[in-house]
């Protein structure tokens, strides 16, 4: 019998392979096109039926179906070259291979290719579940290999399968060390096509009035670690974009350019923080106001926003500082004044006239600004996520008729009023507030924290942040939004004590926070482990130069160490002799010391004779032990602990 030549139809290898393929493909089914998922499931089930009925598929039929599938993938993706098309194709071929598998070679190929399929799943998700998937998938592949390579096949898995579990457990520490030392690259080896999925979160336009219902998502936008002091949550304004162009309906991002020279503004650093941003498929990143120096890999723009050159398609980690910028010595240029006062002349004329009229009743821009805020506070303006849709003159409609909306309505209307009154103003979008996670000592900013506020240019002061939404009277905040919002939104927290909002601290909330802390550790420290982090800890060890070389030393040391440690433990198991043989070998060694030319290849009787002929003295001492050994080995003498003990003593006497 030769394992290599055996067909895999023996001993349940085929069902095992089917189970392994299903296990390996499991996460992919959620990401690849559903017809491919369905087809792979059908092929696996088909293989099982064929196995039970003993049918082998005809090669030419299979070939035609494979070609049809390749055509299908091409139609789906319009290419066979991209990542998604490639993974779809690989998943199909993987199951087709099993369908026609009949030899050891086929089965081996399938099992080793499985490792690669596992990795393709990680292109779609690096969540903590995927770590579990990795372990289970590798374990099942190893189990498959053991079954394939042992003559008893699956039957012996109970006792034999232990070896795959033990191997995996031993592999984990080696993996951790290699993971730690393997040099990472900060740039990709070749450029990859970017994904075209729509990102959730902040958009670069804003059209208040057109949206009938705002869906808030609890997805995490980013997590923040503060070093040292932490601002109050009501002060956490995470600036993303500045929208200053208005066409009467929609606010647009302005054309802006990066600031290349040093900022010549007096400023003081306030907070230090680290952001771990979830992919949003956009160029912009968020920072705590006021923004200045851009983090590595990003640029500061003239409207004090940050942009990256590339879209954030993977988790992006950056460190930054918040500043207090003193604009008091600055003047707006004519161009800037014009931009921040620009309004379309053909719409929303009611609001414009009203604003101009009200401005004339006030002494200064600042007084007028404050008056508008108190106007919102005292009148029937309310906060709702499901405002009425306004067809034309959205600002007029909101300001005079509906008087309900969310941050975008208020920010848009406020800037419109300011500009009408001759005060330069702009809309800022981003996130406001954060949820503190005590289990990981960091803050979570979610998509539902998305917010819009404004900036107003006051002569002698510069840009001043004004959040008109915060001026709404708390009693007019939609019921049900309160408890939800109060936990996160700093702008409501100010009023929290007035109306008695509960701070949720139930069991579920705690568990959720703990879970997020674990996920944060996973995504920030484990999945976010990068070249920067490698060089950082090397620097802490005092290694500034030749960092790659030291990582290489680490790798080499890991492999050597693993070899020594596991070599010792694994091989020691092979040398562990059963006691009778062990004592007998000791006896032989002793006899050799007494210059009796015996060795292991001789039978014990020969040794006995040899000893008698060589030295009578040694013979008298060694004979009892040798005779006991012969009795135990050749005369079916039952070996019990008593006899073993006697044998041991007899050997000791020699």
């Amino acid at each position, binding site marked *: 019998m*030769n394992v290599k030549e055996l067909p895999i139809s023996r001993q349940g290898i085929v069902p095992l392979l089917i189970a392994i393929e299903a296990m390996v493909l499991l996460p992919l089914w959620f990401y690849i096109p559903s017809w491919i998922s369905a087809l792979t499931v059908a092929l696996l089930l088909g293989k099982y039926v064929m196995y039970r009925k003993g049918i082998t598929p005809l090669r030419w039929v299979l070939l035609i179906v494979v070609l049809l599938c390749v055509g299908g993938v091409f139609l789906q993706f319009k290419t066979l070259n991209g990542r998604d098309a490639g993974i779809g194709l690989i998943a199909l071929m993987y199951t087709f291979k099993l369908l026609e598998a009949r030899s050891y070679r086929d089965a081996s190929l399938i099992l*080793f290719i499985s*490792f*690669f399929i*596992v990795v393709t799943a990680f292109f779609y998700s690096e969540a903590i579940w*995927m770590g579990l998937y990795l372990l289970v998938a590798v374990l099942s592949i190893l189990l498959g290999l053991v079954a394939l*390579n042992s*003559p008893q096949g699956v039957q012996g898995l109970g006792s034999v399968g232990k070896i795959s579990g033990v191997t995996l457990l031993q*592999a984990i520490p080696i*993996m951790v060390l290699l993971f730690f030392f393997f040099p990472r690259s900060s740039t990709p080896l070749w450029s990859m096509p970017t994904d075209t999925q729509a990102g959730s979160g902040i958009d670069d336009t804003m059209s208040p009035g057109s949206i009938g219902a705002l869906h808030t998502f609890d997805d995490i936008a980013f997590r923040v670690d503060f070093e040292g002091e932490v601002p109050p949550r009501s002060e956490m304004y995470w600036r993303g974009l500045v929208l200053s162009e208005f066409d009467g309906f929609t606010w647009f991002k302005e054309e802006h350019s990066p600031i290349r020279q040093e900022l010549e503004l007096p400023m003081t650093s306030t907070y230090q923080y680290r952001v771990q941003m979830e992919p949003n498929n956009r160029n912009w990143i968020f920072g705590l106001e006021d923004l200045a120096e851009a983090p590595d890999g990003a640029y500061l723009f003239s409207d004090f926003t940050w942009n990256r050159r590339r879209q954030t398609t993977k988790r992006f980690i950056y460190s930054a500082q918040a500043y207090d910028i003193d604009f008091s010595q600055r003047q707006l240029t004519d161009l800037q004044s014009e931009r921040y006062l620009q309004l379309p002349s053909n719409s929303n004329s009611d609001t414009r006239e009203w604003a101009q009229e009200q401005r004339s009743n006030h002494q200064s821009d600042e007084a007028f600004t404050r008056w508008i805020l108190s106007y919102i506070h005292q009148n029937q303006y309310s906060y709702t996520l499901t405002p009425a849709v306004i067809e034309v003159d959205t600002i007029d409609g909101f300001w005079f008729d509906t008087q309900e909306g969310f941050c975008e309505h208020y920010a848009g209307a406020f800037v419109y009023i300011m500009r009408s009154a001759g005060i330069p103003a702009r809309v800022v979008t981003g996130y406001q507030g954060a949820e503190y996670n005590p289990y990981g000592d960091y803050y979570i900013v979610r998509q539902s924290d998305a917010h819009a506020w404004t900036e107003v240019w006051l002569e002698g002061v510069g840009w001043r942040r004004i959040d008109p939404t915060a001026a709404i009277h708390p009693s007019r905040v939609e019921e049900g939004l309160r408890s939800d919002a109060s936990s996160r939104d700093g702008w409501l927290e100010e009023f929290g004590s007035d109306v008695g909002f509960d701070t949720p601290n139930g069991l579920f909330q705690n568990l959720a926070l703990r879970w997020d802390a674990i996920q944060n550790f996973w995504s920030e420290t484990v999945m976010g482990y990068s070249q920067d982090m490698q060089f950082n800890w090397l620097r802490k060890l005092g290694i500034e130069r030749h960092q790659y070389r030291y990582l290489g030393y680490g790798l080499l040391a890991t492999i050597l160490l693993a070899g020594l440690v596991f070599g010792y433990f694994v091989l020691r198991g092979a040398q562990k002799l059963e006691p009778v043989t062990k004592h007998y070998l000791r006896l032989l060694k002793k006899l050799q010391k007494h210059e009796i030319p015996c060795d292991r290849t001789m039978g014990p009787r020969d040794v006995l004779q040899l000893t008698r002929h060589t030295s009578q003295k040694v013979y008298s001492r060694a004979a009892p032990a040798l005779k006991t050994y012969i009795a135990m080995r050749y005369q079916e003498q039952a070996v019990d602990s008593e006899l073993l003990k006697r044998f041991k003593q007899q050997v000791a006497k020699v």
Partner: protein
Amino acid sequence: MLSVIKQKFFSWVDNRAPRQTMTLLQQRNIYILPTRYGWLMLMILVLILIASTNYQNNMGFMAGFVLLAVGLLSVFYTFRNLKGLEVRCLKAAPVFATENASINVQLTNNTQSQRLAIGVGLSKKSVGYVDVMSQSKSAAIIYLPTSKRGLVDIPRIACSTIFPFGIFEAWSWVRTPYQVLVYPKPIPCPEPLTASNSGIDEGQTREKGSEDFHSLRDYQAGDPIKQVMWKAYARERGLYSKEFEDYVGEHQTLSWDSVAHYEKELAISYLTDAVLTAENSQQVYGLELPQQTVAKGQGPEHLHTCLKALALM
């Protein structure tokens, strides 16, 4: 070129594996290399690491390093599967040329770990698999094809294993001092052998013949005195002679001269066939070869003596 390297390599291997009745597999005589699937795995591993570097995918790195660690560990596991095994070749029974000699290889495991899927064969590529449980023995039979008569050295025997993962193959070559005796291939002679039969040796015939008592008849003058039934004569029942079976033509001496005109190997084959025929029809036969003569006889041992003489001629 390749064959020269192969020859050099195997003479080096043979130097390290002396012919002995028992070989203990240990560091110095176990070799280990990746299997073709091991190389495939290495390729996949490199692919995974390149892809992970490019996509900066730490999950991918993890998978790659688990794979690397499994590969590393499988070196030890595969090696351990052979280490400490005792290999013994038992003496092989003689066979006729072109038949397969069956060589009994005994694997002894004195350790407390079980050894699974140990392949034993004439080369690594053609092995049969046995499991050797802890503190036990297992036997594997290797079929050695023979072509020529004579004493044949048992070639080096490969003990190999790819257990548990098939990533690495560990193997050892074991050599035994025993030889296989290969009898000549029996070929029936196209013409009857001009057997130099006919009781040339009177005494021998009689001696043999006197053992096979057949019947009694009246004494006739000239009957050998030994065949007279003296007991009956003593009782005054008359003089009888014991009659013995007639062996003439049925006990023969197979002589080299009768086939000497054929080509030598063919002649030997013809004689072999004649010996076997004689044995099978329970004849008494002897063998006369140029260097050696086997006295007449019968039975398995006698057959072996004759065949051995023919094999080693």
